[in-house]
Each structure stands twice: as structure tokens, then as C-alpha cells.
């Protein structure tokens, strides 16, 4: 594409930061210039609202709003920072720039790093990993992300270190008709363990977020990762969450999507070596005229790997949801197991759900299945509750919450579960008051 909009090479250069980061941005801008802009006739963009995106409306958040890297005098970070709960470290990221960081001193002494990519993360070790995961799944949005990356969050746990409490990363994006590019790099060294909770929010302004989270789980590491997206109703969110999982390593990734106007998430796990395991779960609830769009990949490169996926969603009003998932078992993935389930509740006339659970199986000695359903609330369940005196509204609420419960139970951290349940209830009740 040609950068006729505000997303120019000069704009990429002007965001400042260390020399290597500027050079990296300019390289990405060059790549972006050679790429075609996504169109809805491409399979991966089918059903999406990409044709509604007018880039002319946006410009990257400029340097004077971002502040230079390392300037952490204005934490703020929206409401989420105050709700962080028990945590061993925290990063507050505004428009992709880290504006506050803190870490348990004991963990810092063990070599754990929770800080800005453009500041403490700017050494060769980190730079070698940065982009190594997302580049494997590059599209125009990740190239654009790299071209305007102002810094980003680094969570680095050295070999053998176990981090008990979650590391919380709070993202706040604001600026009318501006675009921000938050990046999170999570690296768990050999046999390391950690939990990362990310929250994304924005006010009710017209804003474009192109987010990337890269997760590296080295051999025998265990990573639990949750991202919660609660953007304002006019925000577009286009995200990639991708993990590379090493030998005997375990990934548990979860996503909760509630906000945004059009919110798209690619959730991907590549199982690189024997014994690697991944679990991807998600809860989504669309109301009003939202569209929540998920594209998932379970990519088995090595034998004896295992993956499981459970995505559950509901749509009401005129909201739409898309689930398009792929299990890919490559030639070498003998004895692999892969499961994929997508379930959708359609709560209003006018709402709609697309579900496309795909399989590409190139190995024969495997166990693989998928299932997918779309339907309204079950009449029998309603009848059961109503015949026991539960009012219809209450019955519906119970059934919807019950529908999501098995995913809520599998979230990597229970600290947010209460408030997420509340958010779902609010959405159901919101419809009734309209």
C-alpha cells in the first residue's frame, strides 16, 4: 500500500526513542509500503468490517502527546490501574508508551524485568526476541504496528524463576481520530512460570488500536495469559496474540472481549516441540451494533503436542460475531491431539453469528475434532427455571451466565472474574432498558 495517509515514513521517524527502535520502525514502514491493504474478499478478512475502515480518519498519536520514552511522571492509566488486585508487577501503558512501571524488588533481584521495551528492554537479548513471534504471522496491521511502535511492555522472566502473583499490564488508548500501537512481549525462560493480565480500555472517542502481544514459552515453561478488552463504543481494535510454545511447555491463554465498535483478535499458538501444550479460551459478548471478530490458529509443528480451544460468545441487539478457527496438524505432528469448540448464543432477532471451525490435517495418527453451534437460549432450560418460579428475565440471565461459566472458571486468574460476570450482566440488562 502507499502511505498516502498520515501513516508516513516521516511520521514513523518522528516518534523518537532509541536509534535501533527508529531503524526498526523505518524497516517496517518499508515493508508496509509493499503490502496490499486488506480487503473483504480475502478469506482471512471475510465477514469482517475492514471495508468500513477509513485510514484517512486517523493519524498516529504524535510524540508530544506520547511523551518521550522513560518519562513516567504522569501515570494515570485510566481506571484499571486502581483495580489491579494482588500483583507482583505492573505496567501502565498509554497509547503504547509505558508511563509507569513497578516490580517486586525480590523478583527484580532474580533478574525479572517488567518495564518499557524502549528503555530497560533495549538490550540485544530482548531485541533478538522482539518481533520473532509476530513476524511469523505478519499482515498489514502488524507491519503498521511495527512502523509506529513507540515502545511497549516487556515482561521477562529468566530461566527457572517462578513468579507467583500476576504481572498486570494496563493499556489505555485515547485521542480522537488517532491510532495507537500497544505492544507486549512476554518471555518465560526455561522452566519459568508466570501469569500476565492485560486490560485494554479507551474512552468514547474515535480511536484505532493495533495491538500485538508476543508470548514465548521456552522449554518446560508455564505461561498463563489473560487479555480483557473493554474499549469504548467507538474504538476499533485489531489485535494479534501469538505464542510460540517450546518442549513440554504449557500455555493457557484467555481472551475476554466486551468493548469496541469493531474488535478483532487473532489468537494463535504454535506448538514447536514435543510435549508442548496450549489452551485458548475466550468469552465474548456483543451488543448494540458491535462486531466481535476472532480468528484462531492451533499450529502443531511437532509430534505429541496437544491443543485445546473453547470460544463462547453471545450476541444481542444487532451485534455480530465471527469465529473462524484453524487447527493445522503438520506432517510431523504425529500423535498430536487437537480440539476446537465454538458455541454461540443469539439473543435477539437481528443479531448474528458466523462460525467456521476449520481443520487442515497432514498427519494421520492424530486425534482431532471440532464442534460448533449457533442457537438461541434453549427452551427446555427456560421452561425448567420458569416452572420453578424464576421470572423470565432472571431465567435468561442465569442461563447466559451459566453458558459462560465453564470459560470463566478456566480464566488464568480469578481476580477479575467477578467484575467480568458483572459486565456480562450489565450487557444483558442494558438491552432490557432500551
Amino acid at each position, binding site marked *: 500500500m502507499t502511505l498516502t495517509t498520515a501513516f508516513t515514513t516521516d511520521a514513523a521517524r518522528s516518534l523518537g526513542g532509541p536509534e535501533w527502535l527508529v531503524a526498526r520502525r523505518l524497516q517496517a514502514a518499508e515493508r508496509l509500503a509493499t503490502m496490499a491493504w486488506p480487503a473483504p474478499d480475502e478469506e482471512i478478512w471475510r465477514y469482517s468490517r475492514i471495508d468500513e475502515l477509513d485510514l484517512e480518519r486517523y493519524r498516529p498519536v504524535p510524540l508530544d502527546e506520547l511523551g518521550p520514552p522513560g518519562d513516567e511522571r504522569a501515570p494515570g492509566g485510566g481506571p484499571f490501574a486502581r483495580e489491579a488486585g494482588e500483583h507482583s508487577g505492573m505496567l501502565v501503558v498509554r497509547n503504547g508508551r509505558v508511563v509507569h512501571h513497578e516490580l517486586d524488588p525480590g523478583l527484580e533481584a532474580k533478574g525479572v524485568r517488567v518495564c518499557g521495551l524502549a528503555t530497560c528492554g533495549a538490550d540485544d537479548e530482548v531485541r533478538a526476541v522482539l518481533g520473532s513471534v509476530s513476524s511469523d504471522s505478519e499482515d498489514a496491521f502488524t507491519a503498521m504496528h511495527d512502523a509506529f511502535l513507540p515502545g511497549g511492555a516487556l515482561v521477562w522472566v529468566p530461566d527457572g524463576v517462578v513468579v507467583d502473583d500476576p504481572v498486570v499490564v494496563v493499556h489505555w488508548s485515547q485521542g480522537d481520530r488517532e491510532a495507537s500501537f500497544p505492544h507486549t512481549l512476554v518471555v518465560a525462560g526455561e522452566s519459568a512460570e508466570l501469569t500476565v493480565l492485560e486490560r485494554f480500555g479507551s474512552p468514547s472517542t474515535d480511536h484505532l488500536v493495533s495491538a500485538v502481544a508476543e508470548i514465548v514459552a521456552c522449554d518446560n515453561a508455564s505461561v498463563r495469559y489473560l487479555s480483557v478488552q473493554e474499549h469504548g463504543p467507538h474504538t476499533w481494535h485489531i489485535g494479534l496474540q501469538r505464542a510460540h510454545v517450546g518442549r513440554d511447555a504449557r500455555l493457557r491463554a484467555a481472551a475476554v472481549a466486551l468493548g469496541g465498535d469493531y474488535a478483532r483478535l487473532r489468537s494463535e499458538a504454535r506448538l514447536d516441540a514435543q510435549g508442548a501444550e496450549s489452551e485458548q479460551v475466550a468469552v465474548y459478548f456483543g451488543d448494540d451494533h458491535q462486531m466481535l471478530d476472532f480468528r484462531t490458529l492451533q499450529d502443531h509443528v511437532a509430534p505429541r503436542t496437544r491443543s485445546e480451544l473453547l470460544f463462547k460468545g453471545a450476541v444481542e441487539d444487532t451485534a455480530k460475531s465471527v469465529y473462524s478457527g484453524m487447527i493445522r496438524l503438520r506432517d510431523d505432528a504425529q500423535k498430536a491431539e487437537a480440539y476446537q469448540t465454538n458455541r454461540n448464543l443469539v439473543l435477539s432477532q437481528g443479531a*448474528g453469528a458466523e462460525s467456521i471451525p476449520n481443520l487442515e490435517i497432514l498427519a494421520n495418527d492424530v486425534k482431532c475434532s471440532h464442534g460448533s453451534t449457533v442457537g438461541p437460549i434453549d427452551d427446555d432450560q427456560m421452561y425448567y427455571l420458569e416452572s420453578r418460579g424464576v421470572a423470565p428475565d432472571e431465567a435468561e440471565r442465569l442461563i447466559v451466565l451459566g453458558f459462560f461459566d465453564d470459560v470463566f472458571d478456566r480464566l488464568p486468574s480469578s481476580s477479575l472474574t467477578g467484575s467480568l460476570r458483572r459486565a456480562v450482566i450489565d450487557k444483558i440488562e442494558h438491552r432490557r432498558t432500551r
Partner: protein
Amino acid sequence: MSVPETRVTGARPADTLDLGSYKLGWNDGDQFVYRPRKGVNEEIVRDISAHKSEPEWMTKFRLNSLKRFERKPMLAWFADNMPDIDFEDIYYYIKPTDQQVSDWDMLPEGMKQTYEKLGIPEAERKFLAGVTAQYESEVVYHRNRDDLAAMGVLFCDMDTAVREYPDIVQQHLGTVIPPGDNKFAALNSSVWSGGSFIYVPPGVHVDMPLQAYFRINTENAGQFERTLIIADEGASVHYVEGCSAPVYSSDSLHSAVVELIAKPGAHIRYTTIQNWSPNVYNLVTKRARAEAESKVEWIDGNLGSKLTMKYPAVVLTGPKAHGEVLSVAYAGPGQHQDAGAKMTHVAPETTSLIDSKSISKDGGRTTYRGLVKVEPGAYGVKSHVRCDALILDEQSRSDTYPYMEIDEKDARIGHEASVSKVGDEQLFYLMSRGLTEQQATAMIVNGFIEPVTKTLPMEYAVEMSRLIELNMEGAVG
């Protein structure tokens, strides 16, 4: 009942041990009385139409379709599947003989032998109500049972129908699959020749299957038959087709268009056992319109061809209509069976069922590609899709691409799929009871496809099972 040695599937026990070879691959040498040059353009289309002495409206239909074919881009995933197709290197029309006969003995000797070898005349005597045999572009043999004709059942080739029943044809042709539907439907609509036409009057039940057999003989030939089946209110009919071709080094193209119309309360069952030689591109558009309370079943066996891309569809336009696709695909060396089904629920309380079984072996690739679509307002829809794939060795591959587009609250849609190998426990169970590994594998595979074979007329079911058994020889689960 003794089973004829050769039939639609044509596998003969005598040469069963030659695994992976194609049994119907002989050719009769070039046999034709008329053949324009290769390629497709306005001149050739006019030539075909003139040669058939067609009415003006059909010539126009062809020429309009040709324009659409030329304008339509090739879909990306089509192009990926067959990078090497050359539309200019194909004979679009070959007229094999001067006249259509209704007595096998009156066919030219070579052609007659071909059909004898394929077992068609014998099959006709035994269990078919009517037979059409198409050789290259034209139907060369046709016979309908007299009592059916007396009840008003029309069964003939499409060219005859255009001449003799122009009103019915003009009223229905292209209404289910318009020429601009896709590139290959447009191509077919411009150069079509042959195919079957069936009209069953209201309330008439055709108790035995009607059959057509399609044979390509010439190298680089294209076969573009056009089939239209109309079951009027409350009528029922079962139509069976089989296909084969010689093995040549260069490829042939089979691109049919099949339209079914089930009027209120009607029932159509359409069975295809496709066993094209492994150098045929088989790109077929099949779609049915199911009106109120009607039922349409596609039963689809894909065993042959180099590449098949075929997604039988039912558009459920009337309340309480029911659509079904049952399919079995087998992909051996060098084969890609990209098959599936498509259900479009337009009317309320419509139901559909898709059951797909696929087997890939020796580097073959099977793909299920399907769509269930529920339009707004189609309340009370129920649809269930089930796809099972067996992969018999490490070289083979199976893909599943099931699309579900649901724009109605009150619709219950389910999809499930599994991919597996032949289970060690199942093999152990059978082998510990004295079966060889090969017998056990064949038995398991036959059990796997049974939901489809049990719907076939018995003779077909036996042949199908036997063919699968042959292909399984040497298989290790």
C-alpha cells in the same frame, strides 16, 4: 440376486490386485462425426447452437452466458486448486454419432462395447426405469419405460427437451443456477450439450430409479452436460448417474450444471457415483430449489477424477422443506476430492442434514467445504452437519472448511467433525477374531461409509463397498 460384474463403478474382481489402477481407462479411438476446433469463443458457441438447430432464445442464452464466462474472474481458491487449466486447449463439443437410438444394438460397435463393458445395458434390464447414455457431448442412447411415459413422466436428454418441451425448459432453465453464478456455470451455460431432462407430473411416484451414464472418450475433451429435474407437486423421483473416462496423459474437463426443482410436497433423490479417470477435472455446479414441505437429497460418491470441486446445494425456499447431502469421498494417489455441501435456509421451519465421510490414502487429499446459511426471518430452522475423515497413511491429508452464517435468532445449528485413523482397538478386535489386517481395515472403512451406502440401490451399494475394499488393499491403518 447376482451382482453384475461390472457396473457404474466398473471394478472387476479379476484385476483387483493392481492397487490404485483405474479400471475404466480404455479408450475407443477417436470417434466422432463432428468436432469444432479447440477453444471457446462466440463463433464456436454459435456453431454448436446452429449444429443443434436450436431456437433463437437458446442461442441468446448461450451467448449471454459466454460474455459472463469471459468477464468472471477465477476465484482464488479455485485457481489454487488447479493452476494448470487451459480453457483454450479443450474441445468444447464433440458429436460422436449422427443419431440417438433406443436399442443398444444400433449403437456403433465400439461405443456399444464400451457400454457393455460398463454394464449399463444389463443394469437397465434389471433395475432401472429409464436410461440415458451420453458419449462425449451427445446422448447416444435413450429409453424410458413405457408405463412411465404413459403417466406423463418426461425423461429425455436436454437437447430433445429444448426442441420438444421448450415451454417447461424455458420456464425453469437457469432459475436455480443462473448463468452468472460462477465461472464454470457460465461456461457450461454457453457450451452445454446433453444431460438429462426429467419432469414428473403432480402426484406421480416413479418407483424405480432413472439413470444416466456419462462417458468422455477423446483426449482434451470437455463434457458440459446440463441436467434439469422437475418434480411437480407431491411427485417423487430417484435419479442416478455414473461417470467414467479413459486415462490420457493430458487432462479433460467435466463441468456440468444440474438444477433440481422440488415443487411443494415433492421428493427428489439424486445419486451420483463419480468414477472419472484420474486425469479429469470435475467441476460441477449442483443446486436444488426445495419448495414448501418438499424434500431433496443429494447422495454423492466421489471416487475418481484428478480434482473434484463439487458442493451440492439446496436452497430451501418453502416452509418445512428439508435438504440432505450424504457424501462419501475417496482420494488416492494424486487425487484431490474437494467436495462438500451448501444449505441456504430462506424459509421458516426448514431443516437440513449434511453427513460427509472421507477417506484419504497414498497421498490423496480430501477436503470438506460447506456452508449452512440461515437468512433473517427463517425462524425455527434446524441444521446439523457432521464430517468424518479417515486418513490412512502419513502422506495423505484431510481438510475441513465448514462455514456457518446465521442471521436469525431462532435457528439451531450444529457442526461436528472428527479426523482419525483406523483405530488400533477396532483392528485388534477384528484380527483377534481371525480376519487379516486388510480384511479388518476394509470392514472398518465400509462401516465408516455405511450411512451413505445404505441409501443406495442395493446393486450400487454392493459395488461401492467392493470398490472401497479394492482400494483398501494393502492399506495399513
